[in-house]
């Protein structure tokens, strides 16, 4: 992976990498979401699951 353009204070790179992988996997899983699901892939839930209160200062 290329060098990350944006860092997030307090959130390790491996967490951001994991979120990216989960986002892409979810998009892959729901690539026909418009025709089949009618809903956007649930990416918000992925970030909510990964970024909890533990990452607050």
């Amino acid at each position: 992976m290329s060098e990350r353009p944006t860092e997030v204070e307090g959130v390790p790179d491996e967490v951001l990498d994991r979120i990216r992988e989960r986002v892409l996997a979810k998009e892959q899983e729901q690539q026909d979401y418009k025709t089949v699901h009618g809903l956007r892939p649930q990416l918000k839930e992925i970030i909510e699951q990964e970024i909890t209160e533990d990452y607050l200062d």
Partner: protein
Amino acid sequence: MKLERLSLRNFRQFRDADIEFSRNQNKNVTVIHGQNGSGKTTILNAFLWVLFEELQSIKKPERIATQGEMVAADVGDTVTVEVELIFDHEGSRHEVRRRKSLQKQSSDDLEGMEVDGSFVVEKITEDGNVDEPTNPESYVRQIVPDDLAELFFFDGEYISDLSGVDNQDEIQDAIRQMMGLTLMERSIKHLDWVEGQFRDELKDLGSEELQSLIQERDEVESEKEARERELKDKTRERDRLQEEIGTINELLTQVGETRELQEDREELESDRDELEDDVDEINDDLDSLISDKGFLTFAMPAIKETAASLDDLREQGKIPSRLDNEFIDELVEQGECICGRPLDEESPECEAVLSHKSDVTSDGLDQASIRLIDKLDRIRSERDGFFEKVDRLLKRRSNLDEDIEELSGQIDDISTKIQDLGQGVDDLDTDEVSLDELDLDAVESVSDLEAARNAKDDKLSNEIKPDITLLEKEIEEYKDDISELEDKIDEAEDEQQEADLARKRMQVAKAVREELELYYEQFQQSIRERADEKIDQTFEKVATKGYEAVITDDFELRIHDRQHGTPIEVDKSRGERQIASLSFIGSLVDIAREQYEADRDTDYFDGGIYPIVMDSPFGALDNEHRGEVSEVLPMLADQVIVLVTDSQWEGPVEERMGPHVGVHYDLDFDENGGIEGSPITDVTEVSRHKEVAD
């Protein structure tokens, strides 16, 4: 995706046909021969129908069922159409089956009305387990995206359009889809949306309130501390004054004439203190009473109005007036009447209450009405009881005040008597008490001492003690304010934490999106270069010398004239365009295969094995190009299925593609050979290479 078998039952002119495809690596071509109108395009459409329920470039697409079967069926009977495709995908055998039951509506009905249908996908894993995906449509689209299907299952009649100026969207979409770019585009777009969602949450969780509350709490806290300091000073002063008064009292008991007066005074003051304690107790009782029952005074207008309405209803006979037996039993059990009188067992009061019991029981609305009336009566009674208690307490306090006033008068008289004595202070034993310490250096007589005592007592009673009471009250109020503010701060802190979390999540969504955007740019460029190189290599092998196929920065497929230095787009013949399109499709399939086999560590594009199924792909090509394309295509794709006429096959195509062919089929079309003279096509296996049985 490696095709194994296609089976057709009552599908168009195919009543019962099975085609098993060659899957051998060296003999990867399956050729299906058929004259014009024999059903080559129908077979191509069978793939699209079973996978996506689509039909393209076909006459009368509404007639799915075999004509002969529809003609032979009676009105109301059904004809079942079924296509099954078996293929291997990523190590698992897949059986995809689409079935429709069409009911004949009239004697000349050749279309039928769908009365039943099913679409089933079975995935058989290497260990023999069978899985059925819950959403088979979605599952199939994951294996073969439907917008790419036109590339893998294509009609040669239209293939040349791909490289036409007006059809570049298809090229762009195909490359993006195949290489995983659309996946990244969607991820970027959706992450942007998610970022907006977190931003909205942040807006709803205002964070300024917390700072304001903390500041307010600090201000109230410092006010309270200032009062506490003041209270401490006042308390100290009170103690000092009380001590000094005590000392003076002691001095006064040393003088014979004043001793008795002083002792009387101390006794009176003690009595007065007790009475004042009683007054304090009454004040506390009044506070509690007003707090508990004070609302009754404000609620009475509404209660009276309700009671009046109920009385009206009662008078009109709309609700019963009898008391509820159960209610009376409750009162007796509680041992207290609604008027507050005790209901001791067998007492006259208890007997009187029990006499209201009725033998007739009530229920429903009657009972509810009775209960309501009784409750209102009880409230009225409570309200009356409240006023009685308040009056009683106020009267008692007033009596105590009078007693206190009388005692105070007696105490004042004693003071006057002491001052009138004119006794000197020489006899006082002041060894243990310094008058200077008492700030009494000018004292010459008992009268002066008493005056000083009175001054201190005045200050204590009229200034210090009221100040202390006021300060204590203020401090309690500040404490209540602080407690209330701290509750609000706790709430605001919870919100603040939610806001901080929403902000952090928003930053994360942005960071991941920006990372994908950056990589998307790099990856897109790399894909473009890779596709450009591969397509040009393929095109160079088969096209007229001097031309090149180019994928532009905007992912458009262009054919350029290499001979004029700077490439110039040329107006191509249909054949040249067809070559470019075939090169393009073959190259994409090849890139996908390379990626799949390389097993590169990437989140975005795993690649895949895709077949090429071509219907009449050589129609517009001259013999030289037919030969070149025929040689190249089997090398680009893992599996090639070609639907051709004999005239297209014979010559250079057969010569160059022939060595790669594993299976030959013939489509035997008979325009009147079916039921009641309907058209029918039989599929016959002509030859199968011995290596094909893999």
